[in-house]
Every structure is written in structure tokens, then in C-alpha cells.
């Protein structure tokens, strides 16, 4: 409990210090609870998510960093490894491949990498996974792009 708090506090300071370095990731800690974080990540370029800003919710267990943070998408996203309704993410480093040496920042980077390289063979979103597995790259991309426009881009007044 105490250790996770201390570690999170240090990560917080690190994030503050490196704010300008990585403009693709914006990590914000909840004002009242250091175990709740949100992140804004930019969709990687040359993917259907380009131009979108996706919000992630972090829920950090008390045993952190021995246990991984729980992360889910708050922004709707059409991706084989993200549950379309709940936003749950299927990513090995958030499960059995977690290492305590990872940080919230590096988790964000891993999620950005997952967006650029979906794994259709372990799908949480079957529609998306099936499109990719059947080789319909255009279908997947146009769906993903549509949802990026609908959910992850600022509305144009």
C-alpha cells in the first residue's frame, strides 16, 4: 500500500518533469485519488486512428507495481484487441507479461503500439478481428476510421 503510493507519487513527478518530451501521451492523476489516473493518447500516424485522441482510464491496484494497472479505453474504439462496449484491453503486458519495471507512461506507449499493430488472433472485438483475419484490411480500416471520427475527434461546430 505504502510502497505503491510512494512509487505512484514518484511516477507523478516524473510525468510532470517529462511533460514536454512525449506530446503523444498526457497522463493526469486524479486530484483526490492517486490510484486513479487518466491518460489522453494520440492515435498513431498512418493508422485509422490517426488524428483521434483517445482517453484511457487507469485503475491501479494497491500491490502496484507488482501487479499491473488496469487500463481501459473510455473513448470508443474499433480495434480487435479492445472490447467495443467496455473498453477492456487485451494486452499481454497488462496481464501475465507485466513487469514491475514498467510504468504508467510505458503502458501508454505499449497501448499506442498495440493500436498500430493489432493482434487479430486474440480478439476482444470479434467483428474487427474477423475483418482482419479474413484479409479485409480496407473494411477494418474504414470501420476504425469511422469510429475514430465519430468518437475520438473534436466535433466541428
Amino acid at each position, binding site marked *: 500500500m505504502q*510502497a505503491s503510493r*510512494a*512509487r505512484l507519487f*514518484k*511516477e507523478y513527478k*516524473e510525468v510532470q518533469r*517529462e511533460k514536454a518530451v512525449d506530446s503523444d501521451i498526457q497522463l493526469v492523476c486524479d486530484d483526490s485519488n492517486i490510484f486513479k489516473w487518466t491518460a489522453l493518447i494520440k492515435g498513431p500516424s498512418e493508422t485509422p486512428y490517426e488524428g483521434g485522441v483517445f482517453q484511457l482510464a487507469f485503475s491501479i491496484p494497491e*500491490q502496484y*507495481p*507488482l*501487479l499491473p494497472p488496469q487500463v481501459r479505453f473510455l473513448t470508443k474504439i474499433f480495434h480487435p484487441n479492445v472490447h467495443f462496449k467496455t473498453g477492456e484491453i487485451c494486452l499481454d503486458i497488462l*496481464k*501475465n*507479461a507485466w*513487469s*514491475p*519495471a*514498467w*510504468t504508467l*507512461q*510505458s503502458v501508454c*506507449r*505499449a497501448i499506442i503500439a498495440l493500436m498500430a499493430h493489432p493482434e487479430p488472433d486474440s480478439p476482444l472485438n470479434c467483428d474487427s478481428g474477423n475483418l482482419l483475419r479474413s484479409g479485409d484490411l480496407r473494411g477494418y480500416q474504414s470501420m476504425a476510421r469511422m469510429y475514430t471520427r465519430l468518437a475520438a475527434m473534436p466535433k466541428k461546430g
Partner: protein
Amino acid sequence: MGSDSTMNVASAPALLKDMGKKKRANRSAKLKQCKLDARREQWLSQVKSKGGKESSEGGSSPSSPLRLNSERHEPLISLEPRSRPEEAEDSSLHDSDSESLTNSPSNDCRKERHASCGSSSSGSYSGSVSEEEEDSLDDWEAIADALNSEPAARTEPPAVLPTPPKCPPKPTSMGVEGIPRPTSNCRAWRPDDAFRPQSLPNLSKQHSFPMNSERQFSSRPGNWTRIGIMSTPSSCPICYEDLDRTDTSFLPCLCGFRLCLFCHKKILEADGRCPGCRKPYGPVEGDVGVNVGAPLFRLSRSCSMSTRY
């Protein structure tokens, strides 16, 4: 000092002739070179008298050869655009004391240079001298700055070798470059020198770069593997607390990933795998307690996984 000046004056026309041979086609570039060379001479004589002043004040004798040697590389520098506007205040310092010292010698020297320039570069040059003379004072600070920034430019190769299309390749300056220069490693400014530009990069800064622990432990993905290989971290990458002496001598995994004893114990109780390579901490430890406990840890890991996922 007298011998120095004659040597420099003698060597410069040779450089120019060489230049003239190479770039007969490019008149404007040649003119520019002549102009800059003239200013170089002017500056040179000023610095020389200043250097004499310094040595007479009891400064260490190597200081003036140092300066002269750095000036040898000047043709390289003088052509590059003024890259450090922030040194303006510093150059004004230079100007204020050096101009009062040596106005007449510098003028003499400049005339001499022009004469030799005219002979080496055929004719067309002399006409434009007068108007160039007028703006020479305006550019004076820029030249001084370029010279001031020379040691800095040494450390930054891109700044030293600008390749604007206008600027002709200079075999002569390359020859100057080729001179073995022990002095280029030394600095023309001592660290405590009042004239030393603030913007000059510190050598110590460069040395400290690879050792900069802040960056090293920023715990980026992929970074932590490097930590283990490269050096002993100063803080535990898991809890971010400082490592004490026992911790730094503690190497629990063959991959070289270091962490504090406290975190290691906690990992053994929970996951049992090295955070660096994800292999289970095993008999490598040589610790009986750990060996006994190892299967248990795996069990606890699978338990925690099943409850969570």
C-alpha cells in the same frame, strides 16, 4: 609577437593564392574570402596585443599561443553565418577593451592584406573594396562572435561544416585543419575566464552526459534492460528509492537487472520473476530459502492471476 605577425601575414597570401587558383570562376566568393581575411588580420592584431597584455600581467605563457593557434582555423569559421546571437553582450565586452588598445595597427594590417588580395585575385576585386570597408564595422561584431564561438563550433560538427551552396569548398582551410592541433582539445578560454561566452558548452557537461542518471532511470520501455547492462542504477527501478550499498552489490539475476532487496523480497513473495528478463528468480541465487520457496512463488503467481483475470 613580431615574428608571429609576420608569419601570419606571410601565410595568409599563400592561402589566398591557393584559393584564387581553385575558384577563378566564383568571383563573389573570392571577394568574400578576401574581405573576411582582411578582417581576420585586423582581429588577429588586436588579439595579439591583448594577448601581450595578458602575458605581461602574469598570465600563463601558453595562453597566447593557444589563441593564435585557434585563429589558424579562422577561415573555416569566418565564412559560417553568425550562429550565436546570444553572445552579443560578450562580444561587446571584447570590443570595448580591444578597440581602444589597437586601432592603428589593425588598420595598417588591413591595408597590407588588401594589397596582397588585389594581386592574387585578378583586378575585379579592388573596385568593391571601399564599399565593403563601410559595412565592415557593422559586421565586426559578427566576426568577433564567430571567432569567439570557435571552440564551441569544434564540439558541434554540424556547425563547423556548413554547406551553403554559395560557400566554395576550401582546400586551404582543409589544409589548416590537417595541422596537428593539440590546442583544439584545450580551450581558448579557461573556465574562469571573464571573456568566456556563457553559451559555450562545458566539456564537463559532455562528460556527464552518459552518466546522467536522471535520463537513465526514466523507466521507458526497453530502457530498463539497458540499465542492467550499462551500470548500477542509483535508485531502484521498482520503488524508485535510492539504492544503498548492500543493494548496489546485490545482483539477483543473471540478466543484470538490479533492484533493492526490499523489492526483490516482495517480488519473490508474489511473482518470483525478474522484472528485467521475466525469467523466474531461480537457483542462480544460491540462497537456500529462495530455492525452497521458488515453487511456492509460482503457485502464488498463478493464484493471483486467476483471481484477477
